[in-house]
């Protein structure tokens, strides 16, 4: 018991929990915004460009996370593809990298349910709204969003779960730097590697508690 209390009052652990919570909050906001926009775009458009975006969004779902992380490293690294073009976003081995990993890992789980929810019926309602004087932006917020809110809620629950448990992409892009980019999931891995199973167990409990809280919060929101 003393050991558990000692673990819970550890400053490093407090940082890890705060980083994970912050990453989840930012990722869920990004998932909601981009999930809706990309899902709506993909449901509407059947062009080559749409197929390409669909492939890029879906790839992390079917491609090993460690591989996705490696591709991101090759793209965003200092000597990466974008770096050679003069574009150097500071995301590798930073907190922004951890958020990027969580965002990319969870995005297909939001986009896919929304894409399927925006079927013919939603477009029919959108047409009705246009005849009632609403423009495209108003139609999106007043008709499309309410029509898919349950799918959005379900997608966000899955995406948050995926983001919380993300290891592969975060390891490659974030670097697992202690006190900088070590999320709870990575700390579970680090603890097991150090044979500190009690710490790994406590971290799993914390991770589980956050997941349950987020699950009920989003379930309630999507039922409104």
């Amino acid at each position, binding site marked *: 018991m003393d050991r558990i209390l000692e673990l819970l009052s550890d400053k490093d652990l407090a940082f890890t929990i705060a980083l994970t919570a912050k990453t989840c909050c930012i990722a869920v906001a990004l998932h909601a915004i981009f999930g809706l926009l990309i899902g709506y775009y993909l449901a509407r458009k059947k062009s080559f460009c749409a197929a390409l975006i669909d492939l890029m969004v879906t790839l992390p779902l079917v491609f090993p996370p460690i591989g996705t992380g490696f591709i991101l490293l090759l793209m965003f690294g200092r000597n990466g593809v974008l770096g050679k073009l003069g574009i150097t976003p500071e995301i590798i081995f930073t907190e922004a990298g951890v958020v990027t990993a969580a965002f990319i890992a969870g995005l297909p789980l939001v986009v896919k349910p929304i894409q399927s929810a925006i079927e013919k019926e939603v477009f*029919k309602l959108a047409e*009705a*709204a246009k*005849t009632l*004087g609403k423009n495209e932006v108003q139609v999106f917020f007043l008709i499309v969003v*309410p029509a898919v809110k349950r799918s959005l809620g379900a997608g966000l629950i899955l995406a948050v779960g995926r983001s919380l448990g993300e290891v592969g992409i975060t390891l490659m892009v974030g670097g697992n730097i202690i006190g900088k980019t070590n999320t709870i999931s990575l700390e579970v891995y680090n603890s097991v590697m150090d044979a500190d199973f009690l710490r790994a167990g406590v971290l799993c409990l914390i991770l589980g508690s956050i997941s349950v809280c987020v699950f009920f919060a989003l379930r309630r929101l999507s039922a409104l």
Partner: protein
Amino acid sequence: MYNEKGAHKLNVNVQKRLGTTLIKVAFEVPEEGITVLYGHSGAGKTSVINMLSGLITPDSGTISLNGKVLFDSATKINIPTHKRRAGYIFQDKRLFPFMSVRKNLLFGCRNKKNDKMVLTNIAELLGIADLLDRKPDSLSGGEGQRVAIGRALLSQPEYLLMDEPLSSLDQQRKNELIPYIKQIPDKFNVPVILVTHSYEEAAYLADHIVLLDGGEVTCNGTSEQILPQISCQSPLSFAV
């Protein structure tokens, strides 16, 4: 945008290819009363009113209402749907399922200052005042269609398009709804363009009839002129 030619008339002269079907219609009807677009399923009736509403863009031609040009391919004028002020009552109603009847009715309401008064008036006129707090899922077919009519009227349309509004209703519900539709042009001072393939509906409702067949207008005139020429047994063929 406005011209004197064709004032107080709906002028349509458009061409549109939809798959293998070519719709090529030209007609002029008065901007008053109820004009019925009458023809077989697949004659192009719904496509024509979709072009009038702006939901479908014609390949070429012009559409003008009361001198106001809504579409002109030559001058590249194409007023978007949300600016056309075309009330549209769809065959499948298209009420917003996540809103109450009241919110559905007020969705397109342009008279924000007196919205409650206008809502009450229209709801009473259409016999839907008791339904305001219900969700569309709980309405009968006839009630739902009356809510759809009320919603379109509250948006203060310059013309009202109705796509087979009675087709999904049984005879009793049809008989209930027909008087409501009949009174719209006079009570709300708005011309109605109604699509139907039913001879009885055309006979009850039409002041003016445009007969469509195979994507083309085959006849256009007042109901007194057109109805006697249409055989009731085979409504789309002319009695010899």
